[in-house]
């Protein structure tokens, strides 16, 4: 269910790092809790963001939820698919519906995030 090569936050974001760039998304648990997602608000390319700060927001029919960045760095890509098809977040949160890519300024930051096994346990208990 939760990819082994991702790291996870308590706020239900995931990050997958490769060559100094982190791809960020929300977890399957998060999309289930939110329900039908109708709007995704993401930062512009070039935005510099700090770990733990608000990266954007996801809205379901019922409510708005902030997304917190699991890493620090500069936004280098934004998933444009989500502008026209926010519902993709309900369908493929760990794959095609990634949110942004960030050029990591402190690659060591992911070490205190949860592993897939730890996150699964955490999400299951919540």
């Amino acid at each position, binding site marked *: 269910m939760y990819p082994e090569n991702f790291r996870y936050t308590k706020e239900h974001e995931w990050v997958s790092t490769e060559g100094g760039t982190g791809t960020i998304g929300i977890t399957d648990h998060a999309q289930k809790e939110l329900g039908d997602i109708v709007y995704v608000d993401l930062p512009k390319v070039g935005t510099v963001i700090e770990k733990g700060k608000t990266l954007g927001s996801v809205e379901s*029919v019922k409510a708005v939820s902030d997304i917190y960045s699991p890493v620090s760095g500069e936004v280098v890509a934004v998933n444009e698919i989500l502008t026209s098809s926010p519902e993709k977040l309900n369908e493929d949160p760990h794959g095609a519906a990634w949110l942004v890519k960030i050029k990591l300024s402190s690659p060591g930051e992911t070490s205190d995030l949860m592993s897939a096994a730890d996150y699964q346990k955490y999400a299951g208990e919540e």
Partner: protein
Amino acid sequence: MVDFGGWDMPVQYSSLIEEHKAVRERVGVFDVSHMGEIEIRGPEALRLVDHVATNSASKLKIGQAQYSGLLYPHGGFVDDILVHKVADDHFFLCVNASNQDKDYEHIAQHDYFDCIVENAGPRFAQIAIQGPKALATLQKLTPAELAPIKYYWFTDNEVCGTPARIARTGYTGEDGLEIYIAPEEAARIWSAILAAGEEFGIKPAGLGARNTLRLEAKMALYGHEIDATITPWEADLAWIVKLDKGDFIGREALVKQKEQGITRRLIGFEMRGRGIGRDGYEVYIDGARAGWVTSGGPSPTLNKNIGLCYLPINQSEPGRVIHVMVRNQPVEAVTVPTPFYKRAK
């Protein structure tokens, strides 16, 4: 599940949008047992109801229901309610869950007519069956003939062999029924309704769909469109106020406000820009704060982001460009006539 005034209630069972569409297109069932009930009995029950409520209970025939308001002397809402006339000396009120105790005390306090006022919530569970297939669904479970029951009428009969008050009322803008039953029978009847509606594609629906459905139909929600600071004139609910029926609590204040004219009014809007106006968001006109959103969100039926807001009376006509502050960003919207959705009859 969320805590809703002490009740554990599901926001959604499966998908809010699917539940919403099931009610518009087929049938959905809601467990609304949290709703409160108040019984008023006595030879002068009608006089008490007409004293505390804004609509004219005198116009009700036995077996008929009406939407009404309970007001404070200053004209603000204590609650909005459904009044059912069970007999000449017996009225049955359906009230909001979180207002039940307040309503009961308000009514009992103004009982100058020797009535028996009972806070009857614990004796009733309530299930709402709503949608074009609602009658066909419940018809399988009751000997009562449902089709002849007119909109806002009710009958006392049986569902699944147990006594039930069956009312052709609802909070969705769709045709449907609300039934009042003994709490110990509720789980069994709930399951029977789901089984009876299976062939129609019935879905259990949660608080989330209940809210989007009532918003499309522009039905008020206490704590949002109405509260102690809002009068029926402002909330576009003049139709539930009968000034000519004689005195009632709040009448004097309403007469005065009518003479002076209201300063703000509830109006619908549709978002034009990207963003969703939600409950509590501020509304700006020409750069100045003008009002606030009472309820707002995506409309699953219309595929638009809609809402209701209070605006100054001289700026509340449909077609006006407004800006809703969405996370400190002004997003363009336009005022529109309501309701957003009206079912084809």
